[in-house]
């Protein structure tokens, strides 16, 4: 139950011995460029894992940090936890600056990807550990542990050791260990990544239920955009140490700020086409692969507000917004996957892979190898600048 404010936080990891530029010869002054393992910025001080991170998390809000591996989401979470030092910037929990406060004094709890349960202790002792450290009376410990176990439905396993539990049960114990303390902020670092697909879905709904039962602020890290969309009040999309967009799941899905966010959020991934933005008689049109579509009134308004000039663009259309039509973007169906209620058509259009979600009554197995035409509505077009990949509407 606390607000968390992250102000201009930056994290720089100093170079390790192996990362340092090496001199080529014993007496030569030329240096060899070290191997780059990612696109993170490198300064004289080291690799910049997170920068310009600004975020205000409201009390009891569920924030999800999402992004690909190495984008800095876990580092950010660990900085909030106090497990990583903050290179510069300020971190406030409940209005108190906590940059140099020990993790144990931040009143936070954390759930780790690999559970991090104490293997020699029973489930009961695992959950009770933090309370025992605080010298909480035994009867209070017992009450709280049983309450947490009740919430997570693990009462029958209290006397078992972690090795005698399944992955899902272990993760429940890890959550139990976190919630038993009533922390101000509950941090979760990819808690479902080690579970199989079915269990992950089940645990996801458990977390939603848990969130309703315990009144606290959640910060959740994941690389799975489905988790981000279903769990978060707001999601923070990150890439290469920078925040790309902050918004509600619907906002991020409907109005992605750049090509990266558009491609990262949503499954199957958004399709991108090279296109052209045309301004004719005061109206904006997009033109791609032989098709010209007038943009919706809402989009017209936003483009006019920003006085966007006609230009070459990257046009983004979600697979569910492309439909089969007598004319339009031409493509050959490579693969047709039946998903039950719909069919995913993988097309090849001028050497580009395109995915279309088509209703089963419109597309059948006979579509394999067929040439089809696709169209879209003006309201579903996402217009990105060719130069800096940002959304031209914002």
């Amino acid at each position, binding site marked *: 139950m606390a607000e968390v404010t992250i102000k201009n936080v930056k994290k720089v990891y100093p170079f390790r011995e192996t990362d340092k530029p090496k001199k080529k010869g014993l007496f030569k002054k030329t240096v060899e460029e070290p191997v780059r393992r990612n696109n993170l910025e490198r300064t004289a001080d080291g690799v910049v894992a997170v920068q310009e991170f600004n975020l205000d998390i409201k009390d009891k809000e569920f924030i999800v940090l999402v992004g690909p591996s190495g984008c800095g989401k876990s580092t950010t979470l660990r900085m909030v*936890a106090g*497990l990583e030092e903050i290179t510069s910037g300020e971190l406030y929990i409940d209005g108190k600056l906590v940059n140099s406060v020990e*993790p*144990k004094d931040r009143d936070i*709890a954390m759930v780790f990807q690999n559970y991090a349960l*104490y293997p020699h202790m029973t489930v009961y002792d695992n959950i009770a*550990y933090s309370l025992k*450290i*605080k010298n909480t009376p035994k009867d209070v410990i017992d009450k709280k542990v049983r309450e947490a176990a009740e919430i997570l439905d693990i009462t029958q396993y209290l006397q078992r050791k972690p090795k005698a539990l399944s992955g899902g049960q272990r993760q429940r114990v890890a959550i139990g*260990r976190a919630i038993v303390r009533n922390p101000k902020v509950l941090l979760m670092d990819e808690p479902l990544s080690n579970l199989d697909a079915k269990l992950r879905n089940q645990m996801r709904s458990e977390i939603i239920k848990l969130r309703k039962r315990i009144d606290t602020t959640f910060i959740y890290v994941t690389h799975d955009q489905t988790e981000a969309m279903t769990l978060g009040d707001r999601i923070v999309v990150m890439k290469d140490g920078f925040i790309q967009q902050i918004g509600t799941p619907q906002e991020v899905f409907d109005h992605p700020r750049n090509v990266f966010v558009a491609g990262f959020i949503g499954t199957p991934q958004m399709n991108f086409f090279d296109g052209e933005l045309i301004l004719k008689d005061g109206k904006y049109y997009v033109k791609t692969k032989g098709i010209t579509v007038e943009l919706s009134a809402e989009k017209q308004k936003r483009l006019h507000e920003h006085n966007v000039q006609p230009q070459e663009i990257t046009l983004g259309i979600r697979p569910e917004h492309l439909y089969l039509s007598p004319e339009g973007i031409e493509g050959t169906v490579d693969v047709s996957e039946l998903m039950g209620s719909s069919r995913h058509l993988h097309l090849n259009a001028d050497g580009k892979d395109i995915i279309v979600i088509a209703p089963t009554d419109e597309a059948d197995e006979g579509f394999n190898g067929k040439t089809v035409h696709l169209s879209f509505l003006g309201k579903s077009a996402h217009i990105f600048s060719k130069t800096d990949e940002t959304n031209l509407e914002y």
Partner: protein
Amino acid sequence: MSKDINKSARIKLLISRIVVYGILIFLAFLCLFFFYLMIINSTRSNAQLKTGFTIIPGGHMLDNFINAWNDGSINIPVGMKNSFIVSSMCAVLTTYFSALTAYGTYVYDFKYKSLVHIFILAIMMIPAQVSAVGFIQLAYKYNLTNKLWMLIIPSIAAPSVYFYMRQYLEATLPLEMVEAARIDGSSEFRIFNTIVLPIMKPAVAVQMIFSFVGSWNNYFMPALLLNKAEKKTVPIMIAQLRSADYSKFDMGKVYMLMLMAILPVMVIYIILSKSIIKGVTSGSVKG
């Protein structure tokens, strides 16, 4: 046809089993023969021992025991007590501090960490005899001879135990567990004592046994440092009996004392054998 194949396969299996069991029996014989030799010899008198080795035990076990126990030059109970104090203290302190050092270099990040690790390992290359010269000089200079703790304290620095502990930690302790304990509010020392040490139990048990046995059998340092009768350890007493002059020399007594000396070690081995096997094989398979 298939019957023939079956038969030849069975013969091959039988031959390979015979070879394997033969080798194992031979190795087991090599290991156990010297124990048997010692036990048999402890039942024979000095005169019988001079005639050579026999497989059948003699009838002088009790005589040898009484003779050894009543030997004026040694005090067996005191020797056992001294050996036990030194060995158990060495075992406990060596393993605890080695585990603590290994934990320190594994979990914490500090400048020149790898250098510290290499330095500790490099100490393994220095023979005990080399460092003993300076140590003994120091002990005599400051009048620190005949003190049991002079055998205990230096043994705390054990690079090989440190190395074993460090390897064990790398294989079994995820750093997230330490971080989880930190967030749970535990102090660094408490994390080590209540979380890390119990996880390291098999490794600690193994190293405790090895240190105990090493210390129990140690003759070199005690022989240099201890010369008062009430401070002597068992190996010195055995050597003392062994080097007695011709009139008092009794090999039966020596074998009896050796038998008595290995009994505590055997008991400890039997009690902790489960942990040894668990410790030696730990990390070899995914748990």
